[in-house]
Every structure is written in structure tokens, then in C-alpha cells.
């Protein structure tokens, strides 16, 4: 209890200091241990029809491999983003990482401990350090609770503070920290706009003093001008509280703005991971190139566009070999048969593509 008090107090005073230390740390960090190390993570869902139907229709089980062998690391103080089209498994990973969903296989190491194997009790001990912000601020706040109760819930659940006055004071600080008023704690969620609700969600996520926040499409439901406010707030809070973000989005411009490193997903697998400038300026995987080409051209500079046809195949029946091969202009017979393995040819990143491995496809500026 005392610890959290001193933590929040020192955080407010030493915010600029923490920020500068943070910036220094991210410059030379080659030997640094990641906060999260995710290895061969898998999550399969059984979507079979009921047993009787299977017997009558002589059909087997149907398994969706939502996440099918994913490896990545997240380092302290950085924003790691996952991008991809709907159904690629990015939100499933978000839920696996904070323990909202169990894994099928693989490990999720948080500071060296595999939390995928944690018992319920062990998980409770780390849970307050991991928080989540969801996409829809209309669905993620209980409409019958006052904002003050919503924000105080994590504080009470994790026993971080005791006594009404102290909790009230902390809720006030949290509300002011996200740009709302202390009086707003008496209101109900319906009295707020979408952007203000997302601020409430952020205040709730911060209530348990987390180190790591998973943000699942936090601005997708918001208008662009409100999106700018929320993204700016998230960046400020990251510096103030030394937060690490896992950011999930389908909007590449938003991802470029907020991220340090980016992972591109396609049908349950990561096809490319890299530092954002590297990935956006010199994309290696044909799918990354296609996604970058599909960004609407707001600057009207007449950028050459090579639209790729087709849509994401059904995850129920993914293509063999490299799942992208039916849409890929560089696909060969090998791509249809063999799943490409990651090639670690950039710092803290990789690409999984046969064409890159064989030297048929060279990254261009």
C-alpha cells in the first residue's frame, strides 16, 4: 500500500527525469533482456459442428489455427505493434499475452517467467502489472457503474489502496492524468463522448500501476481528430509512467506514428518483424509491400501503386506452404509446399519468405 503511494508520488515529481532515462535506455540496449519473450505461441479453436452432426454428415473436426507458431520479443519502454487484416490473429495474441485466453502451445515469458504455465494464484500476482485497453469504449465500460467506481475497481480488486478518501484521491489523480475532471467520477459512461470514454478506459488501465498495456485497436472506433488526442495522450503517459505497449491495429499510418517496432501478421503467423523505419522504408515481405501500397494516398504525390487482388483466405482452410502464396506475385512451387522459416537479417526483426531467402526478392527503398 505504501509502495503504491510513494510510486505514484515519485512518478509525478520525477516524470521528466524518468522520460530522459527512458530515452537514454532505448538508444543502446543491444544486450537488454526483453520484457516479453513469446516463443512458438499457438492458439487453436475447435469450431466443429456438434458430435451428432459430425456422425450423421461424416465430417471430421474443424480447427481454426488463429495463432499458429508466433515468435517475438517486446523490450522495456517500447511500443511493439501488430498489424494485419481482420482474422489474422492479432487480437487473439493480445488476449493470450494478458492471460484472457489460454494457449494451445508455446510459451509467454514475462520477465523470464512463463506465464502461460502459471497457476491461477501465480497469475494473480502478475495480473495487476498487465492491463488492457479495448477497441470499443461503448462496450468496455459498465453502463450501470459510475466512472469513479469503474476506475476504482482495479485498485480495490488488487488491494492497492485502502480507505475511501485515499481511493477517491487516487481516482481524482487518474482522471486528471487523462485530461478529465475530478467531478467526472460521479457521472455515468453514457454522459461521455467516444473519445472521453476511451480516456476513462485508459484511466482504469492505469489504476493498478501497470508496466505493460495491451492496446487492442484503441482508436479504431474514434474520429481522426479524437484519435489524435488519444494517441498524443498515450505517448505522454508512456513517457510519464515508463510503460511498455503492445499495440494492435489495422491502420498502418497510426502504427507508424506510435510504434518503435512492428510485426506484420498474415493468417496466424508473423511474416515480418522490424524496426518501424526499416519496415516501412525497406519492406521485405511481399505482403508487407502490399499493405503499404494499400495505404490511401493523402499527400497525392502520385506514388506508384501496385494493387494486389484477392482477399484473405478463410482461416478454416488456409493455403498450404506459405499462406500468402495465392496472392503473391513472386510465388513458386516451393512456396506452395514449404512453410518459410524466419530469416533474421535485420536487427531485432526477421522476415519469413522463400523469395527473400533465395535472393529473388531484394528490399528496395
Amino acid at each position: 500500500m505504501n509502495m503504491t503511494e510513494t510510486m505514484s508520488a515519485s512518478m509525478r515529481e520525477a516524470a521528466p527525469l524518468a522520460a530522459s532515462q527512458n530515452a537514454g535506455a532505448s538508444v543502446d540496449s543491444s544486450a537488454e533482456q526483453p520484457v516479453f519473450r513469446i516463443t512458438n505461441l499457438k492458439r487453436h479453436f475447435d469450431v466443429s459442428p456438434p458430435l451428432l452432426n459430425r456422425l450423421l454428415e461424416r465430417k471430421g473436426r474443424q480447427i481454426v489455427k488463429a495463432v499458429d507458431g508466433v515468435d517475438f520479443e517486446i523490450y522495456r519502454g517500447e511500443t511493439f505493434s501488430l498489424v494485419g487484416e481482420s482474422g489474422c490473429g492479432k487480437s487473439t495474441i493480445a488476449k493470450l499475452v494478458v492471460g484472457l485466453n489460454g494457449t494451445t502451445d508455446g510459451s509467454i515469458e514475462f520477465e523470464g517467467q512463463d506465464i502461460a504455465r502459471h497457476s491461477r494464484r501465480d497469475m494473480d500476482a502478475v495480473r495487476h502489472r498487465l492491463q488492457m485497453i479495448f477497441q470499443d469504449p461503448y462496450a468496455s465500460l459498465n453502463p450501470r457503474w459510475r466512472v469513479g467506481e469503474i476506475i476504482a475497481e482495479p485498485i480495490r480488486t488488487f488491494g492497492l489502496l485502502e480507505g475511501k478518501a485515499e481511493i477517491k484521491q487516487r481516482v481524482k489523480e487518474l482522471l486528471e492524468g487523462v485530461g478529465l475532471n475530478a467531478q467526472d467520477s460521479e457521472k455515468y459512461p453514457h454522459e461521455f463522448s467516444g473519445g472521453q470514454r476511451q480516456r476513462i478506459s485508459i484511466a482504469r488501465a492505469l489504476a493498478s500501476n501497470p508496466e505493460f498495456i495491451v492496446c487492442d485497436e484503441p482508436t479504431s472506433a474514434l474520429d481522426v481528430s479524437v484519435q489524435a488526442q488519444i494517441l498524443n495522450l498515450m505517448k505522454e503517459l508512456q513517457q510519464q509512467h515508463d510503460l511498455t505497449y503492445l499495440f494492435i491495429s489495422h491502420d498502418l499510418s497510426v502504427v507508424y506514428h506510435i510504434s518503435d517496432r512492428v510485426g506484420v501478421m498474415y493468417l496466424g503467423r508473423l511474416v515480418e518483424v522490424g524496426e518501424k523505419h526499416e519496415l516501412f522504408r525497406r519492406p521485405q515481405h511481399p505482403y508487407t509491400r502490399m499493405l503499404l501500397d494499400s495505404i490511401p494516398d493523402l499527400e497525392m504525390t502520385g506514388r506508384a501503386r501496385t494493387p494486389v487482388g484477392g482477399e484473405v483466405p478463410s482461416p478454416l482452410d488456409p493455403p498450404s506452404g506459405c499462406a500468402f502464396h495465392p496472392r503473391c506475385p513472386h510465388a513458386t512451387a516451393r512456396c506452395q509446399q514449404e512453410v518459410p522459416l524466419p530469416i533474421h537479417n535485420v536487427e531485432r526483426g526477421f522476415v519469413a519468405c522463400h523469395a527473400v531467402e533465395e535472393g529473388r526478392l531484394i528490399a528496395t527503398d
Partner: protein
Amino acid sequence: MSTHNNTSPVLDVNDLHIEFDTRHGALKAIDGISLQIAPGEILGVVGESGAGKSLTGTAITGLLESPGRISGGEIRLEGQRIDNLSQDEMRRLRGRRIGAIFQDPLTSLNPLYTVGRQLIETIRTHLPMNRAQARQRAIELLAEVGLPAPETRIDQYPHQFSGGMRQRVVIALALCADPKLVIADEPTTALDVSVQAQIITVLKRLCREHGTAVMLVTHDMGVIAEAADRVAVMYAGRLVEVGPVADVIKHAKHPYTQGLMNSIPTILHDVERLEQIEGSMPRLTAIPEGCTFNPRCPHAFERCRAERPDLIAVDEGAAACWLVEEGAAPASPARATADTLVEHHD
């Protein structure tokens, strides 16, 4: 019908007002909007949620529901007034002369009927064709919107199509009676980015070929940049700026449009903070005096707080801003940097 002059607009909305009657009096949701769309032209209508862009589309298609009502102004389609038609007359007009495309393709299609049945029914409602002719036309339409193997897919149900393919079917449905005007309300919002580009391309090509006027309602500036010829920017139930797409995106005149454009993240250069417009759009119950944007405007002065500006012509467009009238349209710094950056890059 076919004798109408080519230069006259397909759609002419003049000083449209829409009100909602509530216990606390009438709320003005749309307060005097005027816009025209020429044959084959795509007019993008942008604005934040609640600005009234969808409501304008709803009023044009005659689907405005109580307690909302048109309280003033007129809507003309090819010169004919349509805002005062009876429900029956409007129903015949919809589908025949006005097509509609909505955001979610799954709710626009009946899940119990095959795609072909829905197309054939719509075609036969509006055009004098027998079943075989209508089926033939449906297959042609599906081929036109880029659906592979239309002869077999016509007999499938909506759930057998992917999101992008469903939206293609909805476009075919909207175009099946060769309407003069299509209202497309957020047609790509529910789709993935790679599919968005395909749908915009189809919509654009078909409207060019058929000379259809399109009102493209969206909150996505990217979609506007790709598809529209002209843009109308809405704020709190009013038009604040109208103009050719390149002008509005690169050299916006109204401070709101500038703020909107600058708040969009870009991959062309790095910024630590995005520019943000402070505050939020006013509620209908608390529309400020004078210019509706003045409490959030960085350039507001006395006149803005007292008098409400109308659209004032400037270059090839118009903006509702006193600064424009005084010839002191504020420059848009962030985009200018982006331009120079791109030039250096080349």
C-alpha cells in the same frame, strides 16, 4: 427524361434544414446545407460522427424517420423536387433513380435469399424485363463489379461470400436499374484496407462509365483522396468548406478542415505529437453563438463569436470562415512541411 441538359446537376440540394422534435423543443440537426453533384461526379462528404453527413444522405433517399423531419429547403433530382413526394412515389424513385450503398454489406442483403433472387427481384421491380432477361442482366452486373464466376455465384447465399465480395454484390444491387444518383454511406468502412482499394476502384469505374453522380459519405479522408472529385466538409450540421479534392486536402481554407487534415498520422515523416483540435464537436443542444467552430478555433476573433459566416467563394471552392472574407486565410503549416519533404525525397 433523357432530354435534360448535361451541365445541369443531377442532385441539387438547396438550403436544407432538418429538425428533430423533442420534449425540449426542436433540435436543428442540419442547418442550411446546399450542394450540387454533376453527372459522373463523385462528391465526398466528410465530417466527424454527429456532423450530420449520414442524415443528409438519409434525407435525400427519403428514408428520414420520425422524429426527424425536413423543416426547410428543397432537394431536386434532375430538376424535379423530391423532398415533398409521397412515400409511394418515393419508393418507386428509390432503386430506380437513386441507388444506395450502406456500410455493412451483410445487413443490406437478405440472408434467406440467394444473391440472384435479390438482384432479379430488384431489376424486375424497376425495369420491364422477364425473369430470363433479368437473370441475364444480373449476371452481367455481377461480372461488371468484378465477381469471379458470376454464372455459378449468382445462385449462392450472402453468407457464402466474403466481406469484399458482398459489398460488390451491394454495388451491383444499387446499380441494377441504372440510377442517376448513388448515395454511398461509408461503403468501405467495414472492409480491410487491401479490399477497400478494390471496392473504391470498382465504384469509381462504374460511375464514370454510367455517368452516375455519387455522394460518398465517409469519415475516412484516405477514401476521399482516392475517390472523390470534390469534397464537402461538414461540422455540427453545417457545411464549412467545399472545393476540389486536391485543394481541400492540400490547401484547406477553413481552420477546421486544416485541423482535421493535420490530425491524420502519416507515414511520410516522423512527428513526436500529432496536431490536435482541442475539445470536441458541440452537442446539438449547445451550438455556440456565431461560427459553430469558434470555441475550438485557434484563429477566432470577435466577429467569429458574434456572427455566423456563410460559405464564401474562394479560388475554386468556398469556405464558411470570416478569415477567408478578410483575405487572411490562415496557412496550413504541417502539410506544407510534408510537401517540401516529399520534394526533397524525390
